[in-house]
């Protein structure tokens, strides 16, 4: 059963790539492009949900080896609970903002390769969620970033052009350091495959040889790269200055999704490789890299949460409030990372998911608010609840989800993280997290009070008639409503989602399952015979049916070559 699924997990990349390719010759024709794009996102969403449930039921990690070259030599693509959750959410968010864009995109944006760019962006994002190879992660980041540069500057307005270079420059710096770090990782460990790196690190820790010299410094380099993309404390600067400039559906997609890719990269690589737990290695007490890095992350988390929300609460333009808020919420995820137990990672993952959905829907609401008022400045907004009650309800639900009032989704994300913070001696972070929650409430109430409750300002008459706005942004409401419903599901149905997140967290902190799923038995045996014996002694764990003692001859993941003269 699972054998046939394995190779198809790459569809998450193939579908957006195909859709992007198809919409290149269709540039300028909106309708067919939109159909193709919508189908693409909807199908990846459904596929992700299906595979997630199937994989959970089978307790399987799906792996596909690109070009049939077995890990660690080729590039392997891995679909586990973490990838699945994020793929599903990313597709849903993309779908929501894409549908929303029908009603907010100007025609010159559509002509400016909007459709292929957004499809290829999703190709990059999906690939970074899937890939099991550190250099391929770099490539997928580059795909994502290149698409995001182009989308950020699409339309080339003065506002965009005077800010976009910051995003491009800082990300370029980070990308360069990423590629250097990937090269150095190869130099230090001799491999690029994440599972293989994890295995080698584990072996080195267990054998008493110790980690390679400079490993912590290498981890710091990777942390810098991912933290910059994820907008951690003091690396977030590009975010507030650029996200508010681009067309709103793109801002929604970016605000919801892009920083999360950086956080994802930390979630994926750090527990697996750099800050591997030594809990299951009897001979070692502590992983020195882990101790150092977790402290660094903890300090970053405190500042990210608190300064982010202070920045947000002081703004008076909705887009700026929302984009700076991204930082503060990333802080909660970083908090989860700083604890790095399985359950905390589950909380971090859940928080990521719900934040993607909620933040994107808030941005999209902002799009329709702007249509009403012609501006996103709170001084110029007002009376929206009366003008557009539906929007008010959607916004309120989304805003309260963001604040984390129970039983909405943010609550359950925050809850586990704060709980684990108490449990692991990071009480000061928990306190900051709680204070941040109160300030988040303040900032959301600010938008609500000024934008929705207060009367329309007399100095600034609202730009559009409510009927016109409503009739011209039907798809906008559909996009928002989809995401809000999803957010409500994440709140009321937090338990089933947490089951996946919990499994994902467990897989992350004890990477044996991941290693075993990705690497062939022989590789594990070659690098770490004891581990191989331990793993393959267990009953029912053996992914391959051959007993270990047999002469290793022909082991290929899923394909034996037959054509050769």
């Amino acid at each position, binding site marked *: 059963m699972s054998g046939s699924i394995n190779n198809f997990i790459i569809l998450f990349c193939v579908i957006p790539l195909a859709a992007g390719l198809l919409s290149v010759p269709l540039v300028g024709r909106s309708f067919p492009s939109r159909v193709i794009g919508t189908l693409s996102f909807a199908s990846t969403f459904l596929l992700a949900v299906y595979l997630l449930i199937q994989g959970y039921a089978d307790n399987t990690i799906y792996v596909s080896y690109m*070009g049939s*070259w077995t890990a660690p030599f080729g590039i392997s693509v891995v679909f586990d609970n973490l990838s699945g959750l994020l793929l599903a959410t990313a597709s849903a968010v993309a779908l929501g903002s894409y549908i929303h864009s029908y009603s907010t995109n100007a025609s010159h944006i559509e002509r400016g*390769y909007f459709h292929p760019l957004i499809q290829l962006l999703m190709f990059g994002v999906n690939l970074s969620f899937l890939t099991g190879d550190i250099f391929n992660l770099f490539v997928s980041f580059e795909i994502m970033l290149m698409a995001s540069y182009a989308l950020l*500057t699409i339309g080339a307005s003065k506002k965009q052009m005077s800010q976009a270079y910051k995003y491009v420059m800082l990300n370029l710096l980070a990308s360069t350091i990423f590629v250097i770090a990937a090269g150095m990782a190869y130099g230090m460990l001799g491999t690029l495959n994440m599972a293989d790196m994890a295995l080698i690190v584990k072996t080195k820790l267990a054998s008493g040889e110790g980690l390679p010299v400079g490993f912590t410094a290498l981890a710091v380099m990777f942390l810098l790269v991912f933290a910059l993309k994820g907008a951690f404390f003091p690396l977030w*600067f590009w975010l507030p200055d650029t996200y508010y400039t681009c067309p709103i559906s793109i801002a929604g997609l970016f605000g919801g999704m892009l920083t999360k890719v950086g956080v994802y990269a930390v979630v994926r690589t750090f527990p697996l490789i750099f800050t591997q737990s030594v809990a299951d290695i009897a001979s070692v007490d502590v992983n020195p890299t882990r101790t150092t890095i977790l402290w660094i992350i903890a300090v970053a988390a405190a500042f990210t949460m608190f300064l982010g929300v202070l*920045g947000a609460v002081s*703004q008076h333009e909705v887009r700026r409030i929302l984009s700076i808020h991204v930082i503060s919420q990333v802080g909660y995820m970083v908090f989860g990372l700083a604890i790095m137990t399985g359950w905390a990672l589950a909380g971090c993952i859940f928080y990521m998911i719900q934040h993607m959905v909620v933040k994107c829907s808030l941005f999209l609401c902002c799009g329709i608010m702007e249509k009403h008022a012609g501006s996103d400045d709170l001084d110029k907004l007002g009376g929206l609840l009366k003008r557009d009650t539906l929007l008010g309800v959607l916004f309120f639900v989304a805003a309260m989800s963001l604040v984390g009032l129970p039983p909405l989704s943010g609550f359950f994300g925050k*809850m586990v993280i704060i*709980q684990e913070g108490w449990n692991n001696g990071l009480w000061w972070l928990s306190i900051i997290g709680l204070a941040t929650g109160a300030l988040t409430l303040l900032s959301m109430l600010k938008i609500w009070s000024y934008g929705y409750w207060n009367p329309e300002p007399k100095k600034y008459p609202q730009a559009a008639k409510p009927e016109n706005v409503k009739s011209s942004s039907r798809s906008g409401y559909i996009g928002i409503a989809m995401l809000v419903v999803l957010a409500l599901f994440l709140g009321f149905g937090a338990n089933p989602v947490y089951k996946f997140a919990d499994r994902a967290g467990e897989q992350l902190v004890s990477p044996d399952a991941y290693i075993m799923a990705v690497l062939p038995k022989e590789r594990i045996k070659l690098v770490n015979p004891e581990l191989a014996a331990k793993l393959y002694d267990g009953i029912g764990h053996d992914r391959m049916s051959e007993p270990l003692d047999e002469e290793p001859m022909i*082991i290929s993941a899923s394909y034996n070559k037959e054509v050769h003269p």
Partner: protein
Amino acid sequence: MISTLFLTLIGADNGQHASVAGPALVEGAGSSSRTLLLLLAIFAPLVTGLITLFYPRKGITLRVLTALAGPVIAFLLLLNHFNVNGVQPLDAGSGPVAEISWMPLLHLNLAFLTDGLGLFFALLVSGVGALIVLYARGYFGKNEDDLYRFYPTLGFFTTAMIGVVLSDYMLLTLLFWELTSISSFLLIGWDRYDKHAVKLAMQAFVTTGMGGMGLFGGILLFGMTTNVWTWSEFINFGTWWQAEYASLAFNNPVFWAFLLMFFGAATKSAQFPWQYWLPGAMAAPTPVSAFLHSATMVKAGVFLTGRLLPVFGGAMVAADGLRAGLEIWPWLVTIIGGFTMVLGALISINQHDLKRIFAYTTVSQLGLLMCMYGLGSFAYEHNGHLLQNIDFDITQIANHAFYKAPLFILAGALGHVLSRNITELNGAIKKHPAMCITIILAGYGLAAGPGTISFQAKELFLYAIYHLKYTAVGNWWMLLMAAAIVTATCNVAIFIRLTTTLIGLPGGFKADPNAIEADHHHHEHEHGFWASMIWVPGAILVSFQYIGGFVPSLWMRVFGDLEVYNNNYFAEGIPTFWGAIIHGIHEFSVPLMCSGIAIVCGIVLGFSPIFRGTIKDVCDKIYPGIYWLAVTGGGKAFRLIQTGNMRHYTVMVLIAFLSVFYFVSLGDSKMFDLAVSQLGSFNEFWPGVFLGVIICTTALSLPLVSHRIIRILLLGSCGFTVVAMYLVYQAPDLALTQLTFEIISVVLFVLVIRLLPRDVPKYRPNPIWRIALGTMAGLAFGWMTLVAVGADPANKLGMWFTMNSYEGFVRDVYNAGRGGGGKNIVNVILVDFRGFDTLGEITVLSLAALGVWSLLPSRRSRKTS
């Protein structure tokens, strides 16, 4: 198959996570149906409220009746539950709770605790809620829009409040707790075009929201520490508690959990210094003030304190005597409560707006209730028995609801027909006798006059204070007693002034020309049944005062069974007025005497000319202060680093990275040694060294020149030297690629330079910090390069690629002898082994081109399309 999958998805694999612990699941059909009924009782008001949304706006009567049905159904169901099942006892062994599994992983299931406290509150909320539905009809008149919006929100609140008091899971309590905050916010900001009201709504929500965060943290901390997630377990944990947490010092998490929870309770119940939000909440329509901000929601904090008292306050009576609670409880809760009590009373007498007067007396009364629970933590010896210093707490709470809600209801009614400003109400009894008589009767309850249940309640409180002298407090009890007397004096004085003003007696207020604005709500007056609803609910509620006062046995039949603590001062039940006096004569009752003093002083104060102006509470500045600090101060702090200037960002990113990097690396002497050991290979190959020198020289001279073309040429020559370096490193493919890319890049650069203006202003180079950062960064990466190369692992992937590039390594265990079919290994890696990277790479290339064409829309493409 899908359905199977779905079942697996949401199916009950409880206890799958290691840290899941909870009471056992459903215990039998009877109890689970009980849970369902309670669930129905909780959600009935919300459901009926939502149903009214679907009615046509004109259908007012139907709307009222439907909205009324919700709390009535809830009330009847709860009453039935009470009659059939009685009160759930709180001692150990009351059995597991029937629960409906919702989020077992997160310790949040649907289970309910129907002990006396919870059941009492639930009955109170649903009962008063029903009356408020009627009152709202009278208050809003025929205003369709207001009623259309009001009932759903009211139903939402009623549901949330019943949920708070009945939930067994702590987190479920929190969930409903926050919902009460939301509904309170929506109701305070009811008049949403009034910017002031909106601000006050925000103030209330943010303050209680802060408290909610505290409660949230406290519950999580407590749950994490003790693995107790339900109130029933919490209360039953006495013995275990004693053993495990005997020393409850500052370093104990439970201590901090209590503080956080109490912070939540204190903000919600408007304790000092958070009392400012409650008078602010009077911006809400009066039905809301009467219901949320006097009778029910503000008591959520008191309720929570009552929940915590048995364990944290040590008031749990067990067979082997009293348990020790947290040492801080008696001091913290009593002092905060007592201070709030006296502060609220002193401010209340200095107000003119009826709603503000009653709001501050509510603050005062909430302080009293809090103080009562604080006192409940003390134990004293009496006739050889160790007794808890608390009695009939339910009566205390109920009595407040039965005079304060009517006071608000009537204040709203008077504001409707006349004015809410007491200075404008002189002689109002002539115009509106029924309303005025009701408000005077309720006011008599406020004054705790003999004949009301309020009087007995006050006696109980004074007894509790008096008994402090048998405890460690000693003679300090007199201080608290003085505070209580001051509070009672103020209350009596308010009653006197209210009565004299309304009747028009001397001593009352005369119309004040500088009076504050009257109530904004002036609807057209109507007559008949619905119009009378503006005061009748108040009259119904106030009647309980006098029933309790004159027929305590009847009161006891209703509330006696609900009482949690009822065995200390008046073992035989609440005495009548005369009973209390006789009780006092028997053993020289100091409390009764104090009561008398308060009444006398109150009458004197009531007629006296002092304290007749209006004052403002200092604490009103707290929220604006927090707001200013967060918005202005926070904004400034944020602006300090978010300057908008790219150079600052780069500097900060680099400083962040370099400081962490050097912090990590300089502590690691091995990194230094490894780098030094690499230096030995310096003289390997001189042409390489020569090329290196050229690369460095061209790079270093780049910053020195400012002419653009020369810069490009230097850059190009640096690139070409790198090409040569690739050749030295035996990389022909790289050299070719770099060479051609170098050419194309130079062409691009030249083209772009021609597109830019020629005259570039000269900037001051301010080189020192740039050089410093550049040097540090360069050193870091050079060093790391040496270190990374020095690691030199035994098994590199590159080895495998060399062996498998052309023909498969036949006996290779990994790959079944399949090869890449090419001799140029780099190319085979690119298009085959790591072909996926290349696919991504050409995608990046295409994206760059798309980006360029998107930035510079091509004229030609427009022609063709």
